[in-house]
């Protein structure tokens, strides 16, 4: 599975991004190896560690590839064209757009509080004391943003009934459609094979 994903990533020229995603798994891998190999009691040995890791990679990389090759905005646009609710699309899209904003807000707050002398390096009791001054401004700022955006959306008739006209339609070639059907078929076959006990667990 991981191999297949890597191959298609190569094709799309996004191997670098995928490699970085795999690198993000290094702490888990290191931790897994350490605990399974070095722990006398209960450790499952190398095989367990590798199996757990492969399972994780198999579950993570395909979806990562999807979002590495597909523009999230395009995907959401297309979903809306295919009849997924406008609200679901909005929540997903807005969440993606909001993450960098929230991140920037958090960094601002951290820097501002540090400038005021907040201790983020000292003993754990001092750091615990920093929790409220860091979290509260970030949350309250976000809630103020909710207020602004709600009004902005209402003014633009977000809540009004009826279907919206899409400004941009995405091209969908016959090859792409065929590939989708093939993949679905392969998935069904794989599941059937597994249910029938042809392949191992």
């Amino acid at each position: 599975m991981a191999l297949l994903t890597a191959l298609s990533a190569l094709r799309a020229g996004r191997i670098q991004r995928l490699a970085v995603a795999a690198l993000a798994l290094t702490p888990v891998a290191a931790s897994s190896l350490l605990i399974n190999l070095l722990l006398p009691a209960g450790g499952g040995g190398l095989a367990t560690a590798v199996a757990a890791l492969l399972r994780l990679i198999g579950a993570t990389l395909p979806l990562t590839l999807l979002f590495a090759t597909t523009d999230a905005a395009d995907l959401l646009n297309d979903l809306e064209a295919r009849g997924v609710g406008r609200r679901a699309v909005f929540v997903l899209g807005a969440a993606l757009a909001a993450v960098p904003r929230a991140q920037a807000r958090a960094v601002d707050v951290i820097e501002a509080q540090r400038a005021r002398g907040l201790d983020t390096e000292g003993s754990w009791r001092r750091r615990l004391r920093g929790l409220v001054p860091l979290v509260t401004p970030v949350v309250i700022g976000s809630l103020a943003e909710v207020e602004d955006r709600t009004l902005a959306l209402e003014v633009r008739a977000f809540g009004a009934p009826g279907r919206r006209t899409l400004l941009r339609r995405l091209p969908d070639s016959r090859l792409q459609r065929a590939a989708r059907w093939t993949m679905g078929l392969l998935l069904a076959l794989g599941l059937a094979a597994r249910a029938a006990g042809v392949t191992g667990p």
Partner: protein
Amino acid sequence: MPRSATRTLVLMPVAIALNIALGSTVQQALKLPIYLDSVGTILTGVLAGPIAGLVTGGLTNVIWAYVLPPPLQAPTAGPFAVTAAVIGLLAGLWGWLGLFRARRATETTSLFVAVPAAALVALVIAYTFSRAYTSPQGFNSVTGFNVNAFRLSELAFVVVIVVFILLAAWLLVVRRDAGAVLALAAGLLTGLVAALVSAPISAFVFGGVTGFGGDVIVAAFRAAGSNLYQATLQQGLLSDPLDKMITSLLVFFVLAAMPRRLLARFPNGDRLVGGAPA
């Protein structure tokens, strides 16, 4: 669509981003051994109800694990979307029950509400844990876990309860804030449920290793003689209640600091601001 529905829809993405920002950036800045990744989820649940909380929690982990570009990506978060969703659902329930309502400390009635409530929560928890520790069959039939060695986790339980009592005492005596005790109790219950939900995920999907500081605790429990499932559950019962208690308190303080007119516009607003002006 009523105005509050739009407001809920706007709140959810912002809360998702909040979860991720607090869980990564702020968590890294403070380097505290808590996750801090469910502030937005609990906030949404309390303000906009169980369904909104559920969606927010689940989506947070899915986006975090699969959609975000690598420096932010947390691949292990994906399967725990179930836990996050349950946390949001519970927060909605607590909000609906009014556990996060700001109560004035001077109201003696609120004290009369808070003290028995805290006692009741403590009783429920003591009962759950004592059953978990003393009656393996009963525990097994409820949670599906086989229980043999729970010595270490009794210690962990004592830690959790002591922290709860200390925080509650601090809230009641120093801050004279009875409402916060209810929020604290809600956090404790949420943490217990979160631990029960995430233990099988942690054990089955990850083999007890998630690349987080908790791995060491799981390993310690295993070294003490628990099997994998017990160890992940014991680790969860230690860190989840602590994390959720702190998160709930943070949410409560934020809500108490917000203007009442802002709170009242959310679907659960009536249950947050109470009748009399504070």
